[in-house]
């Protein structure tokens, strides 16, 4: 069950700053509801987990995020995250290509093209769920990305030698999701075209 989600949003920050944030999984993860990184395996690979809540249903995934490609010139990053359901009911993975481009007014535009793949029990129970949940998650991602950048003090690049402390995400999807969408009530996502 693969779902493709395209997302575009603007950030009132210069492109370099946005790129610095976008190219650091430990920062990016703080924008993913319910997600956290637990340790850095190497400078491009991180272990982590994510909890996905939809209504009464809860799924916990444990896995890895890896930077497949980092193009500092083009400001483009390709990340692959993959997690197994801790109760052995399946897996979820996401391949995300993110890029930043400067806008004439000095702000930046972030584009993400993602393919979410779900395997196992949840995929059996319905594509509907995966499509809608993913779409909502990316709206929340965009929102938090902007918020985080505003708060985030100029950050040093991740130091691969040091074992970084876990980067906590803000809360769990269920409630966060609620908040996010309350604000975007009755507005459709920018362009979540299904595939």
């Amino acid at each position, binding site marked *: 069950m693969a779902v493709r989600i395209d997302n575009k949003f603007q950030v009132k920050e210069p492109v370099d700053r946005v790129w610095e944030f976008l190219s650091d999984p430990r920062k990016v993860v703080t924008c993913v509801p319910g997600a956290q990184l637990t340790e850095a395996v190497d400078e491009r690979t991180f272990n982590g987990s994510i909890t996905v809540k939809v209504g009464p249903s809860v799924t916990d995934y444990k896995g890895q995020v890896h930077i497949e490609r980092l193009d500092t010139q083009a400001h483009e990053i390709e990340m692959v995250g993959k997690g197994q359901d801790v109760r052995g009911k399946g897996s979820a993975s996401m391949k995300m290509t993110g890029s930043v481009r400067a806008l004439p007014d000095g702000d930046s535009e972030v584009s993400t093209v993602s393919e979410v793949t779900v395997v196992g029990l949840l995929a059996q*129970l319905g594509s509907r769920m995966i499509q809608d949940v993913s779409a909502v998650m990316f709206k929340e991602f965009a929102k938090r990305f902007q918020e985080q950048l505003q708060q985030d003090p100029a950050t040093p690049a991740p130091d691969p030698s040091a074992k970084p402390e876990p980067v906590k995400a803000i809360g*769990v999807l269920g*409630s966060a999701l609620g908040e996010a969408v309350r604000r975007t009530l009755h507005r459709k996502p920018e362009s979540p075209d299904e595939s």
Partner: protein
Amino acid sequence: MYPPSFEYIRPGTISEAVALLGQYGDDAKILSGGQSLIPMMKLRIARPAWLIDIGRIPGLAHIKEEGGYLKIGGLVREADLETSDLIRSKFPIIHDTARVIADPLVRNLATVGGNLAHGDPANDHPATMLALEAKAVATGPRGEREIPITDFFVSFFTTALAHDEILTEIRIPIPPPRSAGAYFKLERKVGDFATAAVAIQLTLNEDGTCKRAGIGLTNVGPTPLKARQAEDFLRGKKLDAPTIDQAAQLAADAADPSSDLRGPAEYKKGLVKEFVRRGLRRAMERAEGRK
């Protein structure tokens, strides 16, 4: 098939139930009819640590007209709506809806409150309540509050209910004369969720033109949808074929379904269009007392 362990509490009053929700927070879930929650627990995709059974709390199973509202208690079983003479005679749209929810056995346990509070866009009552512009009564630590149904469905499986609030009553404004509604649903078989469904509530002026139209859509988006453009478009108009067709198109445009085993998105939009046509005609006939 075999649900995970949980602790079970059966409070005697709503305030106790609310207090328990506050106490156990996110680990607690309300059990009313259980016809959505228990299947999820059997599949172990839902695993609340605490189940708070409100099924026996008295005073929540009423169907009555009062103060200009039809008041339906949160614990009213679908089967009771289906067989209620008041509903059948005065609110055909609700009767239409109740009788196509799940199957006759499930309807003996499933409650109206649960059907709405679950926040599943595939459930049937939400569209109907949107068409009727009902109000949901939420009871929480600070007592009751009315939530307009139009603000109730927040996102996919998420409602405006705070975690420590319980849906205790639905209030439906009693429609003026020359009002009626209808619910049209296509399901792959009895017991299935709607491939798509449309709820229509209509009030006619004396000259037969449309005074007010309420249009709710089931399972064609992340939340139940209200086809506002179509509703506005119809106001004041004579309900002739071209007008009905245009309204149907506007409603179809409002739908945002995803393709799945029930059919491609395009088909679901097509169903919305067709059911709005049929719903408007049926509601008109009923409002004019022809059916």
